[in-house]
């Protein structure tokens, strides 16, 4: 855990010599996963509060941020949205792995190959010295497309357990469930990133306030189980 405190400071340490103004803490979160799993949609959803009209391939890295209020403290959440194509991550993206506070792995629940790539992505992070001390979460995206489901929650949960990550299943398109017109309060994409932010702020092990519904691990199926999770997930956002 020691790493987090010091690297957080880093983001503000360059210019603070005498009487620094009260600084906004920055949480830097990198979002990775195969091409087309919806990394851009997820990050856009969180930062802009809506599903993007169109997203095209991300070339290199894209950057989005949002100021949130966590327990009275203003915190800037920086999301680094990365290109999915392998050639980019090999020689381009590593620059952006530095000083990362948390990692969000994304796969597409309707694309088994994107799930099978996860070990490679985890390996990739380890190569960049982002070990298990850096909070990591697993997000299965596009779970609004139930008819073409290829990765079962059980399979994903097993994988998440074996890597000590919490698993979230959601949809950047309709994060509040199949019915449209979601408000931020009931927005589960919101909840995912806010959970990470809370975790980073508290720097305590990630314990979900929602009791695990029926399964072994901390699966949170955000699309299906939102009523049960209501209280614990409502984060004050600005």
């Amino acid at each position: 855990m020691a790493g987090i405190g010091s690297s957080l400071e880093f983001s503000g340490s360059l210019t603070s010599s005498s009487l620094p103004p009260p600084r906004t803490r920055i949480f830097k979160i990198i979002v990775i996963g195969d091409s087309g799993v919806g990394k851009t949609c997820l990050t856009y959803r969180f930062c802009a509060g809506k599903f993007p009209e169109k997203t095209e391939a991300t070339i290199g890295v894209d950057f989005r941020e949002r100021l949130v209020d966590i327990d009275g403290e203003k915190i800037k959440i920086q999301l680094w949205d990365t290109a999915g194509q392998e050639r980019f991550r090999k020689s381009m993206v590593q620059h952006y792995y530095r000083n990362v506070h948390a990692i969000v792995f994304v796969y597409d629940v309707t694309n088994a190959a994107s799930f099978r790539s996860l070990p490679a992505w985890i390996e990739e992070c380890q190569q960049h010295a982002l070990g298990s001390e850096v909070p990591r979460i697993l997000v299965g995206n596009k779970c609004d497309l139930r008819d073409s489901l290829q990765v079962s929650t059980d399979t994903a949960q097993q994988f998440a357990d074996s890597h000590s990550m919490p698993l979230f299943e959601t949809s950047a398109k309709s994060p509040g469930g199949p019915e449209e017109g979601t408000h931020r309060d009931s927005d589960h994409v919101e909840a995912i990133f806010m959970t990470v932010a809370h975790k980073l702020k508290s720097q305590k092990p990630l314990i979900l306030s929602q009791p695990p519904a029926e399964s072994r691990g901390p699966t949170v199926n955000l699309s299906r189980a939102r009523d049960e999770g209501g209280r614990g997930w409502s984060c004050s956002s600005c």
Partner: protein
Amino acid sequence: MGKKQKLAEIHQALNCDPVDIETLRRAAVSKGGLLTDEIRRKVWPKLLNINVFDLPPKPGKDVRENHRDHNQVLLDVRRSMKRFPKGKQLIDIILDVLKCHPQLHYYQGYHDVAVTLLLVVGERMALALLDKLSNFHLRDFMDPTMDSTKHILNYLMPILEQVDTELHDFMIRAEVGTIFALSWLITWYGHVLSEFKYTLRLYDFFLASHPLMPIYLAAAIVLHREKEVKTTECDMAMVHHLLSRIPQDLPYELLIAQAQELFDHYPPSVLAKKAALQSRKSLSISTFQAFQLSTLHQRPDSVLQRLTKNPAPSSSNMALLPREPSSLWGQGNRVVKMAVWGLSATLGAAVFAVAQTAMEWGPEVLLQLF
């Protein structure tokens, strides 16, 4: 120079024998570029030394079978459908080029280049242009890895250093890197500009220029935004964020002129002396001189058309139109090839000398020139 006069000059240059390529290049670079898509359809092929009467056939159905990059191409094209509804043609020309040249690897952003060509010149000519570009200007981006691309990006900071040390140092301190310019470089800005007319204007410029020109334009853009950069927080995220979002109302004509000026003042050969740039050779750069020489002795369309056995059905204009069938690839092909060989021979020793150095780096590329 007025628009009318420019049009007249371009037409005159096109009708010279050999084509007055220097005038066409100047027109593409100077204010307003090539002005209209109709002119682009005529001049772009000349800038790349392509005989429009000998275009490759439309890709067959088999092109979409079993290519290693098939899924990625499909994914990227589908996502760009809002810009270009004819995704099938786009997928086909991309896969056709990749299939013809197994040494070329698809990268995300290649589809942005392909779509720009396709929208202007139509399927078969886009295929010919894309084929040529992929083997020359874009060649470095199409290696199995992106190490060569990184090398090209490494030219950016030395240009800034020459012009504005303070800005350069600020960016170094911020550790911003150069990835903010990656999509600019490998898509020739097609990925980041929302106004298609600006993309076209830049394509005129780049098609007539050295393969490194997109980097010089990147430098011109960063320099143009110097004040904004310097007043932002000296932090990787902030500077990356600022620079990667390209303002949509940039003064493109001015920036093009400045990029050209930067290129003239600090040519790649001068920058290459920088330590960071010495370690690697670029195929695009090393083959460029030979490529440019090869464009010098082209026949005008009127002559090229006569040289073919089966003249196109109506005017030369018609043959230039996209989707106009022309059966020259089969029979007439040989005659044209002979003519091209003849022309190539006249280039003689000069090309040979350049070719020798380039041969070291890309023999297969050079063979396509002749």
